[in-house]
């Protein structure tokens, strides 16, 4: 269901002679051969073929090809939810800009410039996205080393203070990559906004109101905001570059550090993409376990949203009530995976361990209690006149905004667009359980609040159904598909069986033998659609791993919507968009 059909592709090929189409069960693309045609192709796709929902734009670096960079657009038809990838080669590192067709391409092109150094005709004063203004290099190019370019001497404190010459640990290095100074940062700040109002207020980068280290610049006229800009990059860790140097199973702990509030959901999206690429079938018990934990994490993440959103708007007690429920969920996850937050519970081919004894009873106890707690939160906030005054008709996001900027998740569903990956392309056990998707009407902060509260209720229902199914399963059902050549077998087999030990050796040392190909697959994070594009050339690490992060595109609508609102509305709007900086910056 998610990929474009043969007829659509043939229709496009008939309209444009110079495109090349390709379709497989997990991928559908058209390649534009002339770089100048790309604007016409995109306009045709948007207006005539109805591919008007912009999902992603990214760049791949092929240093040995004639033209070095390949750009890719991912578009979706919001009426029948078909997805299409459009590829085009850059011409001498330049490409016509797409920001007049899809407004969300502006941020994507800034990131492409920042990471690859490519230019866009029509998007002249492109600024860097994550790095500071004067940074000289382009990190995601293939000739930039993984450890950066060490050009600054950064001694440790024991050297400076005690004059100790013994290195503190065996991997200590004296030379470090360049660290930005205060002057660099001030230059970045000044170049982002030209003052038109009375006062430029720095909201961030360290502020209890922004959900993480984001830096906003507000141009104020009294209490009203005239224009604003966001400076990101304080938490940029270069995960896409790291992925090009690790095996597929080693990248798993990194995926739960992106959206650290709902780690299992992010891991699920990643593991799904690798499994689709390598054609791995997951056993039924693992599917149910994955679904149950993903929905528990969804409740976890929405509770944190509720707590911090209410805290920002002044209701101080809801924060602690939400955290009381979160403690319970984290106890459940800790008992099964070992860690509360960054759990690394899933593995390619299944889950890491079977369920611990007692999990199902504890989960049943939690769900029974949770319904009454949801009524408490509703009683405190939903019909409270102060809450209504703060959130009704504030920050209205229209359907056109959703299509142009690529908004997904509760932000899109609050505006009336029923885009939920769990129903469009069901993965794990989502086609075996019964649930509804709440959809809003107006698109203001109050609608998004109602959508998320209803989603928590639906998630609790899914968890109940998964518990029922898991209780009925016979014991000793397999939880990992160990017959597949790419999956690492579990520990008991490695100790007792020579073949499995050799297989484990082979996969850990030489990496998995994932076949050549490419895939884009996405899952429904609590914040939106988290997509992974993997381009594999048959080696043990991906050639290019692109993380299509939902918080990044959700945040890009903030500067447009916040104009003419006040600072207090900015707080409410940011809380309802619910970005997580680990995912925005990767």
């Amino acid at each position, binding site marked *: 269901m998610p990929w474009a059909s043969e007829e659509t592709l043939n229709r496009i090929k008939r309209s444009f002679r110079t495109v090349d189409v390709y379709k497989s069960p997990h991928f559908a693309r058209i390649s534009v051969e002339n770089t100048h045609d790309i604007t016409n192709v995109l306009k045709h796709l948007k207006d005539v073929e109805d591919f008007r929902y912009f999902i992603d734009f990214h760049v791949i670096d092929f240093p040995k090809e004639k033209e070095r960079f390949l750009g890719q657009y991912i578009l979706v038809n919001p009426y029948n939810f078909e997805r299409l990838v459009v590829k085009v080669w850059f011409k001498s590192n330049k490409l016509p800009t797409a920001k007049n067709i899809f407004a969300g391409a502006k941020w994507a092109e800034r990131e492409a410039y920042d990471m690859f150094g490519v230019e866009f005709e029509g998007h002249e004063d492109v600024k860097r996205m994550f790095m500071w203004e004067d940074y000289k290099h382009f990190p995601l190019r293939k000739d930039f080393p993984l450890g950066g370019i060490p050009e600054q001497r950064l001694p440790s404190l024991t050297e400076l203070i005690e004059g100790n010459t013994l290195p503190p640990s065996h991997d200590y290095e004296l030379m470090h990559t360049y660290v930005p100074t205060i002057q660099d940062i001030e230059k970045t700040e000044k170049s982002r906004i030209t003052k038109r109002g009375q*006062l430029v*207020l*720095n909201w961030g980068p360290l*502020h*209890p*109101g922004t959900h993480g280290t984001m830096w906003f610049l507000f141009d104020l006229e009294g*209490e009203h905001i005239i224009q604003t800009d966001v400076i990101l990059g304080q938490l940029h860790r270069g995960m896409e570059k790291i992925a090009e140097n690790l095996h597929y199973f080693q990248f798993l702990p990194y995926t739960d550090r992106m959206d650290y509030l709902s780690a299992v959901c992010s891991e699920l999206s990643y593991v799904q993409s690798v499994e689709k690429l390598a054609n791995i079938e997951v056993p039924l018990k693992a599917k149910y376990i994955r679904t149950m934990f993903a929905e528990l994490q969804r409740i976890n993440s929405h509770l944190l949203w509720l707590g911090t959103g*209410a*805290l*920002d*708007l*002044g*209701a*101080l*007690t809801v924060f*602690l*009530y939400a955290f*009381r429920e979160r403690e319970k969920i984290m106890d459940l996850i800790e008992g099964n995976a070992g860690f509360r937050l960054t759990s690394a519970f899933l593995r390619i081919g299944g889950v890491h361990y079977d369920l611990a004894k007692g999990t199902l009873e504890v989960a049943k106890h939690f769900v029974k209690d949770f319904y009454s707690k949801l009524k408490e939160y509703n009683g*405190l*906030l939903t019909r*409270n006149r*102060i*809450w209504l*005054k*703060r959130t009704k008709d504030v920050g209205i996001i229209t359907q056109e905004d959703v299509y142009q900027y690529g908004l997904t998740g509760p932000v899109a569903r609050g505006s009336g667009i029923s885009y939920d990956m769990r129903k469009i392309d069901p993965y794990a056990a989502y086609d075996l359980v019964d649930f509804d998707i709440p959809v809003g009407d107006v698109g203001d902060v109050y609608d998004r609040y109602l959508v998320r509260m209803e989603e928590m209720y639906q998630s609790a229902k899914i968890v109940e159904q998964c518990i029922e199914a898991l209780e009925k399963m016979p014991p000793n059902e397999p939880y990992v598909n160990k017959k597949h050549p790419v999956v690492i077998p579990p520990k008991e087999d490695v100790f007792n069986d020579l073949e499995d030990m050799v297989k484990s050796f082979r996969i850990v040392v030489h990496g998995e033998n994932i076949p050549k190909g490419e895939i884009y697959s996405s899952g429904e994070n609590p914040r939106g659609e988290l997509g992974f594009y993997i381009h594999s050339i048959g080696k043990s690490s991906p050639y290019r791993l692109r993380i299509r992060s939902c918080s990044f595109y959700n945040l890009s609508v903030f500067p447009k919507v916040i104009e003419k609102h*006040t*600072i*207090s*509305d900015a*707080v409410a709007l940011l809380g309802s968009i619910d970005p997580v900086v680990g995912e925005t910056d990767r």
Partner: protein
Amino acid sequence: MNDIIFTGIVIAVKILVVLAVTLGLGAYLTWYERKFAGHLQARLGPTVVGPFGLLQPLADGLKLMTKAPLLPRGIDTKLYYMAIMMALVPAIMLFAVVPFGPSFKILGHEIKPIVANLNIAILYLFAMGSMAAYGTLFAGWASNSKYAFIGSLRKAALIVSYEVVLGFAALSVVLLAGSMNVFDIVDAQIKSGIWYIVYQPISFVLFLFCLLAESGRVPFDIQEAEAELVTGYNVEYGGMKFGIFPLAEWYLNVLALCAIMAVLYFGGWSGPHLFGPFSGFIWFLAKTFGLLFFVLWVHWTLPRYQAKDVVEFAWKYLLPISILNLVGTAFLIYFKG
């Protein structure tokens, strides 16, 4: 001569008692609020320092006083220090017109447990309440910081609007009682046998809102909305200089206004004689602390309003209601006698 010395001693003793009790009580109100907020939020408040955490305010005071005094660059030093005094002094001066109980006799002289028995006590109340605006304005201007500036502007707008409403609300009670002297108001309630809250519920609700606004408590604490302005006008103050602001604004102001509210609407020290000679004092304290409990309860439950909504609320809704209430009361008194 003897009389003057005696009166002087009595006044000095009263001032000392009131100062000591209110400052000590203000410090211990922090303990009370933290414990209350803790249990409301399914957790314990302070428990480690002393039994039940009772020595926590002393530990806090010691910590604040021993912090390194940092002065930011570019401040206006005179206003910076004067702001602290302008915040604290009016809050303490409010206690000069709070009556703690009925008058009693010592050594043949009748003593009223109030520091200054003014005939215009309610007017004095408004004056001291408005002076509280100076503290925040000076602090916000002298801090040389954008956050402090915005916070103090918000608070100035707030105080100006809510003072007017406070005036009209309290005036209805004054009309009923016939005088601005606090003792006369309480005596009028005791004589008629009914507390004024039964006659003036609308005025009570308006006074409650003004109390929450004047002392900067949720739902009206716009000048220190944490998610927007990170403690607002006192963001550049540290150590005990910072400690004075919440003490004066959140605790002393609220305590004094709660006491006045007990006097105006709940009959001061009237109540059945269950506790012997001190029952008046005990009833007064019970009513004040009951109202304080309610104020804290509201603080930790409701969200907060936006700055422009607060001011709009005062001018568009509260002021017409208070004027109508005043006119209605006047008509009722004229026709009912």
